[in-house]
């Protein structure tokens, strides 16, 4: 509609004032988002495990490339690509940039820039792109996790600590001139970017690398389907290493396959298993703490326990793993022989209520609160649950019919190593924020057993380790408290024969433990923990004792 000039003179500046003011502003005002730097992740000694750096990518606009053959020949050695490979990426009909190669190091980028200048190459551009770099290679991938193409954390600490790592993007308001160039004097910072916090982990790269190497070798040598090694510091709950197999590489660009989710998870907290005879330590510790047994208390091993079946069903029997009957055994010998009948008698002395009280105190059936995502509490069926029977009590006392996470088991052993005080497991030592450093202090959860009971139990565990059969697995010069476990794989129809979780837990050194270690191999060819896991413990123990300068035990053999 045409308006008369007089009407327009009033209409436009007065009645349509806001509209045209906004249009004018939009024409020359611009808002620039300033991306925040994603926080880095360091190991306990300050070695970077994950960094975000801007690495150059070489792109080419096919239509603008003036000397393709010269360019391919000149850049071939720098890009470590053959000239035909380079030429294959350049389409002379395309007017949008195509990436020839990314992740270029500073030196290569400089050399390419110089070559472009020297040979007067057109249509090429070096473009900085943010890249998550892993200087140590793929170390602790399930712990660190990874980020997606949108730079958000998708797994591990990258996911669970996303709020800390991500930071907050900033905003700059500015104006542009008629050539669409920014008027720098008009630049106004509305919100400065806040960089993400850096995380200092409790993981030690040497420990992590050692256990990853030993785990890979153990899985290969024992033809196992997988496994796990974890190392914790009992006095602080700091996790020094956490290795899992099968694994994946965070250092390689990858496409997420839903079928691979199982190996992306931190299985130490997301997967539960039946621990087997390792659980006998928990049963024994409760009885020691209550003063119901001493190392020399004698129980009678008849070789079999029989529970009457309900409503015409056949009776349930529990036998020793080697189907033997030893007769009278001391409490220490119950652990040495990993005697099922003996430990049930210890559990009977402890009583139903106290057995589950100690299982609860040791943290089974509860999340540990570690900073990893997807933690499960495990499965403990208590007398209050429907369908519970005394058979459950017997099997729970020897580590079957109860499901725990590997971290729960390690934390329980660590509690025995810390004179009965449970610490909260942690993976993070410090959070370095732009405005200060937050130190994650060791946190005591509760007192589980008395120091005397813990020390007595460690002495009994040393007796287990120092049996002649274990001579080959001892760490020279250092007394180790350990206990092996072999648990059958549970299935819908009961327990399979031939497939086991073979594990060992240990405290090094036994007198004043500085390291708590859990080693588990899944479905090894030789099924017993003492056969397959104990040799791994020896190799790991020797390396870590030397690294941490653990002094020789004064009265070691």
């Amino acid at each position, binding site marked *: 509609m045409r308006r008369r000039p007089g009407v327009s003179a009033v209409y436009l500046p007065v009645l349509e004032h806001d509209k045209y003011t906004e249009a004018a502003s939009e024409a020359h005002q611009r808002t620039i988002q300033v991306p925040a730097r994603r926080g880095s992740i360091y190991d306990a000694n300050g070695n970077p495990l994950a960094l975000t750096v801007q690495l150059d990518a070489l792109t080419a606009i096919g239509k603008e490339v003036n000397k393709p053959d010269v360019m391919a020949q000149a850049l071939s050695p720098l890009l470590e690509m053959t000239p035909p490979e380079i030429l294959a990426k350049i389409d002379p009909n395309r007017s949008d940039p195509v990436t020839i190669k990314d992740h270029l*190091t500073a030196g290569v980028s400089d050399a390419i820039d110089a070559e472009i200048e020297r040979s007067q190459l057109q249509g090429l551009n070096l473009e900085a792109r943010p890249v998550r770099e892993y*200087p140590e290679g793929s170390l602790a991938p399930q712990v660190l996790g990874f980020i997606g193409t949108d730079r958000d954390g998708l797994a591990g600490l990258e996911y669970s600590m996303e709020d800390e790592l991500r930071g907050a993007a900033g905003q700059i308001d500015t104006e542009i001139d008629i050539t669409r160039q920014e008027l720098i004097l008009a630049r106004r910072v509305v919100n400065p970017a806040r960089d993400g916090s850096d995380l200092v982990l409790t993981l030690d*790269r040497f420990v992590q690398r050692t256990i990853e190497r030993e785990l890979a070798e153990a899985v290969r040598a024992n033809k196992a389907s997988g496994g796990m090694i974890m190392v914790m510091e009992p006095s602080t709950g700091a996790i020094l290493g956490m290795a899992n197999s099968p694994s994946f590489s965070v250092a390689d660009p990858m496409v997420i396959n839903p079928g691979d989710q199982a190996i992306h998870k931190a299985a130490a907290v997301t997967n539960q298993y039946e621990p087997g005879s390792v659980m006998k330590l928990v049963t024994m510790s409760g009885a020691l703490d209550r003063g119901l047994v001493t190392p020399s208390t004698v129980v009678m091993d008849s070789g079999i326990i029989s529970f009457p079946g309900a409503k015409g069903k056949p009776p349930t029997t529990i036998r020793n793993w080697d189907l033997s009957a030893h007769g009278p055994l001391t409490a220490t010998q119950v652990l040495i022989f990993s005697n099922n009948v003996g430990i049930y008698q210890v559990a009977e002395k402890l009583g139903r209520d106290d057995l589950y009280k100690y299982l609860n105190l040791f943290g089974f059936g509860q999340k540990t609160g570690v900073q990893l995502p997807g933690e499960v509490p495990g499965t403990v069926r208590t007398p209050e649950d429907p369908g519970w029977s005394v058979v459950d009590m017997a099997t729970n006392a020897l580590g079957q019919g109860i499901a725990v996470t590997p971290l729960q088991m390690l934390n329980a052993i660590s509690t025995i190593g810390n004179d009965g005080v449970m610490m909260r497991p942690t993976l993070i030592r410090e959070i370095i924020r732009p405005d200060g450093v937050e130190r994650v202090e060791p946190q005591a959860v509760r007192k589980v057993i008395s120091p005397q009971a813990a020390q007595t139990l460690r002495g009994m565990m040393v007796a287990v380790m120092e049996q002649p059969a274990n001579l080959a697995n001892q760490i*020279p010069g250092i007394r180790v408290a350990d206990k092996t476990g072999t648990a059958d794989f549970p299935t819908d129809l009961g327990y399979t024969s031939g497939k086991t979780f073979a594990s060992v837990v240990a405290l090094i050194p036994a007198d004043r433990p500085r390291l708590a270690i859990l080693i588990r191999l899944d479905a090894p060819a030789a099924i017993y923990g003492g056969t397959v896991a104990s040799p791994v413990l020896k190799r790991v123990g020797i390396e870590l004792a030397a690294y941490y300068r653990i002094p*020789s035990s004064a009265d070691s053999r």
Partner: protein
Amino acid sequence: MKPSVVGKPGGELSSQRTRGRFGRSMVLLLLGLGLVGLAPPLYLLQTGGALTTGYNIQRLQQERATWILRNQQLEAEISKAHSLAWVEHEAVYRLGMQRPAQQTTVQMNVPPPSTTVARMPSRESSMPVTVLTPPATNDDPSVFADLASAVGNLMNGP
């Protein structure tokens, strides 16, 4: 007595005053015009200078950002060169080192370090190191002491 009014001399004075006022006004006007005339070029000069400074700042900021970027890239490369993976790769593939087939443990009959020294190190750099100072003894005199003694004996004769 009433003073007589003299017309001419008074008129000249007034005329002179008027001319003087006019002259000053003209000067002020010219000055004003001059200032007004100078204002645009001065403004342009000032704006141009500010813009040039602004673009210089922008260029320097870009340079700074580039150097920060390059510094981060180099730090990442240094970190890679310090990584255990790289050290192991160099040791195995370049230097041909192998893991020992047999390890020997030597047990020293010395008291263990004190509790404070034996604590778990928090950082490699601050890892406690026990420095054992050997006790000062005179049981094993040095070669120089032996020589000095022999020379002394020669000088003094038998």
